[in-house]
């Protein structure tokens, strides 16, 4: 359980985290036992088993750092590496397969049910450890200690146990330094940062969070900082600052009245900061408490907020909305693109209906289409919004390369397309287009809306991010 958990987290936070990568990582950790069961009858000699065990041990000790280092060393122009993915997958099969051989080997002597109960109890123990361990570092100490314990129980030789325990201790002690180096290599090679510094790296129960700072370009501009969630850029001071402006500041400015506002997803708190300065009373709902902590602490230049100026709630936004009776003037959905099932549910018609039900009569919802309006993902998200909201307006920004959708729950939007276009011209030097309700609905008329029961958009988006050769058209 512990190895599966560490492996799935490392692979999914390294190989551009999408649902397909998570599924792939989990399938690989499940394939390992099949290989172990299939070979358990053929590797009964001590020599073969010892060789396999030694290889598994080395992979286990290296895994928490190797995934990122290997991908960083081998990555190609797409920012990922098929070779690294295959090597990691193979390594995991060797590792998980070795542990899987133990149950049938031992079950020859003792009845399987008792051993099976022990295995399940071990998995439960690991689960409790993962859930209640206060830090990732401590979880890794247990993970490394497991290697030493396994070596002792299998070999019963004090010298070898000491050797393995020494290796495990070294891996645990040097992990922070090795991880930082691997992360620097990874962000320099795979994400194109110039001499990056990892200001903070943390593992929450949901994801790995990195705050990466580039080397300062000159003395006038502050160094660029980026917030990464599972290796995917969520906020970047610089070009991505336009995103919170268009998503939150622009509709916030155009609204005739200022009242309560809700921001789903904290990120760098830029959206919340814009709205707070415009006079809104802002509530931020963030699922991952650690993201909120790091976002607030490391992006003060972007949000310019003081603690207490916005209310932060740690909860799932769908659950929060289904329980609250509050209604808002403006709801900003600053949520990740539908790379995962969890985030895809925040782009569905049923979620948008929940959002619409919490808007004041002249309220507005703002959301990102994560794509162009006529793109496969963008049109699916817009079609879902079209099913749930009354009037739509879509802003396609050239500089941002994405479209943003504003919607009202009942009746017309409180600002016209012309007003939006004028506001866009002020903040986007490259310009763009604003589509009114009729044009938007006409463009997406044949699009299949993302729904709880049709999440093919996740598949499409995940596929785009796989480290596979692309055709020219792609």
């Amino acid at each position, binding site marked *: 359980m512990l190895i599966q958990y560490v492996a799935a987290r490392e692979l999914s936070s390294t190989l551009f985290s999408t649902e397909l990568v998570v599924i792939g990582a989990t399938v690989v950790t499940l394939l390992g036992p099949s290989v172990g069961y299939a070979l358990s009858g053929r590797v009964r000699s001590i020599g073969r088993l010892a060789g396999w065990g030694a290889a598994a041990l080395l992979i286990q000790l290296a895994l928490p750092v190797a995934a990122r280092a290997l991908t960083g060393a081998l990555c190609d122009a797409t920012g990922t590496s098929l070779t690294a993915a295959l090597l990691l997958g193979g390594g995991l099969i060797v590792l998980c397969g070795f542990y899987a051989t133990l149950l049938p080997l031992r079950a020859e002597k003792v009845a399987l*049910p008792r051993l099976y109960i022990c295995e*399940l109890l071990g998995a439960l123990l690991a689960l409790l450890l993962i859930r209640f361990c206060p830090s990732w570092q401590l979880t890794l100490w247990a993970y490394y200690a497991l290697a030493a314990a396994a070596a002792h129980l299998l070999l019963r030789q004090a010298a070898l146990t000491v050797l393995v325990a020494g290796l495990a201790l070294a891996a645990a002690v040097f992990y922070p330094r090795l991880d930082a180096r691997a992360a620097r290599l990874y962000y320099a090679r795979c994400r194109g940062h110039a001499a990056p510094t990892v200001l903070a790296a943390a593992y929450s129960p949901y994801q790995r969070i990195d705050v990466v700072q580039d080397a300062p370009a000159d003395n006038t501009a502050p160094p660029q900082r980026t917030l990464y969630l599972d290796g995917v850029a969520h906020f970047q001071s610089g070009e991505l600052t336009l995103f919170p402006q268009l998503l939150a500041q622009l509709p916030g400015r155009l609204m005739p009245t200022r009242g309560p506002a809700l921001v789903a997803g904290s990120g760098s708190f830029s959206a919340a900061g814009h709205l707070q300065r415009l006079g809104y009373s802002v509530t931020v709902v963030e699922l991952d408490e650690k993201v909120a902590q790091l976002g607030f602490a490391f992006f003060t230049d972007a949000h310019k907020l003081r603690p207490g100026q916005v209310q932060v709630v740690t909860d799932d936004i769908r659950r929060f909305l289904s329980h609250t009776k509050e209604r808002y003037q403006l709801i900003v959905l600053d949520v990740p693109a539908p790379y995962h099932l969890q985030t895809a549910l925040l782009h569905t018609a049923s979620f948008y209906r929940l959002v619409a039900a919490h808007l004041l009569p002249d309220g507005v919802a703002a959301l990102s289409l994560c794509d162009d309006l006529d793109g496969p993902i963008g049109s699916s998200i817009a079609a879902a919004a079209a099913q749930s909201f009354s009037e739509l307006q879509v802003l396609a920004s050239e500089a941002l390369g994405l479209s943003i959708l504003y919607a009202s729950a009942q009746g017309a939007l409180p600002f016209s397309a012309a007003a939006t276009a004028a506001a866009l011209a002020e903040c986007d030097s490259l310009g763009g287009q604003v589509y009114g309700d009729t044009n938007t609905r006409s463009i997406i008329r044949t699009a299949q809306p993302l729904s709880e029961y049709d999440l093919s958009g996740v598949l499409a988006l995940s596929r785009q991010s796989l480290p596979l050769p692309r055709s020219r058209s792609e």
Partner: protein
Amino acid sequence: MTAAPRPSLSQRAEALLTGMWLALWQVALAATLLRTSGATVQSFFALTATWLSGGVLGARWLLARTAKDAALPEKDPAPRSEYKVGTRLLLPAVLLLGIGAKGLGAAAPFSPVAAGVILAAGAAAGAYAGIFIADRSRGWPDVARLLLAENNGFVLGYAGAFALLLWWAPWLDALALGVGIGLALSGRPLGALRPALGLGAAAALYYLLRPFVGDRGWDGLMTATVLTHPDWVTTRELLFFAHPLVIPLTAPLFWLGLPPLYAAAAREALCAGGVVALGYLATVALSHSRRAGILTAAILTLAVGRWHLATCGEEKEAAMLFGAGFLFLYLDHRELWDLQLPAWRTRSPVFRRTFLSVLLALSVAVHLVNAALGVVIAADMVLTRPATYRRAALREGLLLLGGAAILAGPFFLWLAVGPGGARTAKEVLGYFFEYHLSGEFLSLPWQSETAGPAGLGERALVVYTSAREWLLGSAPGAASIASAGESILVVALAAALLTPLLRRGSPAAIRLLGWALLVLGHACIFDSGNPESVAPSMTLLVILGSAGLFRPLRSRWRWLGTFIAAAALVGLAARHFSQERAARQRAQGVRSLIEPAVPSSVPLADLCQLIDAELPREALLLVSDRLHASYFHIYTRRRPLVTDYLDASPEVLRQRFALTSLSLRVYRPALDSAAIAAAIQAGRPVYLLSSEPRPDVPQRELPWDDLHLYALSPAPPAAPSTALP
């Protein structure tokens, strides 16, 4: 040296399928938890922990049981169960918990109770996994092979589950449930039920995967409308008088995530599969021939009209499943035939009577047409020979009818008096005979244009044509009414086929024929031209016909029965697939216009969504056919106005247009023609969707049913996108 013993094929298949089911079930539960309890990490950990804890408890329970059995003296060992360990109670309980969790999650999302049921379902599934590994390992020569087969199944199931979850999630739930049911059934003694269930499952799967491509009927559309807009109706419409439990039966499929129109079709497909299974059992019981049973199953599956009606969500298969289920079991209970059902005859008579009473009450509550079963039982009581047997029949009949009346009577009375608002006995009757009294469907042959015997003959031909359409479908260009010669020939052949069976076969045959004739008789006066009216009779006649063809023949004539059956099946299959292909081709126009990512089996739904997207939000839409309005109700936020119903009061709509209370709720126009004229005057865009030609009005031709979209009031030019430099 001898080779190591190998596990049997069934052992390997069971391990592989169990692993696959566990993965499907785990992912389906996790997805339900994610949807209905949120994406918090606590949910994920709670589900994994309950699953693992269940596994520990399950394996521990098995160890304790094994120890207890081993402690018994050798001369008095524990009785050997015919069920595989875990499949008798635990696995069905796991499946029921999963269904309950799904339904509760849909009905009360983010409630702790719903999350609790999901976790309980996870714990129970984990317990089954623990029991499975601990128990089956004793029968395998090598535990590594068991673990390998189970783990391979898990990997396959896991990958497949996520593929389905991302592509079309309802199939994940359906597959998880289907494989679970299959495992539960494979672990118990089934006897003759095994081939019946196989044929039924195949039929249901075919209906689910290859539905009719085309327009849907009123029943399917209304069910879907009520599921989409429960706020539009009251309890009266939800428990619709003619088939009170049909919409509630469909709701769980809707909660599973099926689109509403597909939920109605899926209900019928599943019930149609059940009817096929019952048909097989009945035919084998009548003819003692499996070939006859297979013939019945094949004809029922391929009958073109039946497939059309069922996959469009008309409710006759649901009615038939409950009705036939009752009658067939009743006849078995009376020992008039032997369906060879495991654990039915061995039950006590009290249990069987109670079960049959409940089933009869349910049958009538599902569809009023099943009230005819009361007449069949009464006839059985009166006509049973000799007199000594008649007394037993009388006793059983009275007990069953009395039991069913006690169960269903208060429900129907409440339905009429409460939601129906009836205050007198006449009003109660009027409530349940709303269709008959509306005048839309009831027409007596002697009241038709052709009076006297000619009128009766003409009506008989209409009913025969409906029956033919149920079996063979209606080809474009075919005569609207069959010829008298053809119908006389077919009836004579049927009589020749059935007479020996009725005279010398099981006494159950004549009772089945009685029910069939009763429904046919009703069809002569009620909606005679609709194949739906004769559907129950045709199902029974197929059963009797197949049994008649294969009843114990002398061996020299057996080849003839097989030849006729094969020829009939080949002809029916050719007819079925040609009509299926033709229906699909008719939809090509709509598909090439819309180019949907996944072609729908309801082209008009795609077309209505396209029209809705293209018309301005504020546009008024009129439709000449009320059923067209239903597609907008189900698939869009638009509520079109039915032109014929404009300016009509509810009384007029009831009397002149025969609108039921449900239709009134859905189709009664919100505006009158004066308001529409005022809207046109004010420049509001008004459109009409109709197949009636209107040459002088600006229009757009649509590639379905000769439909045109007429612009009655010019729409303002669409605002171009506001371009910036």
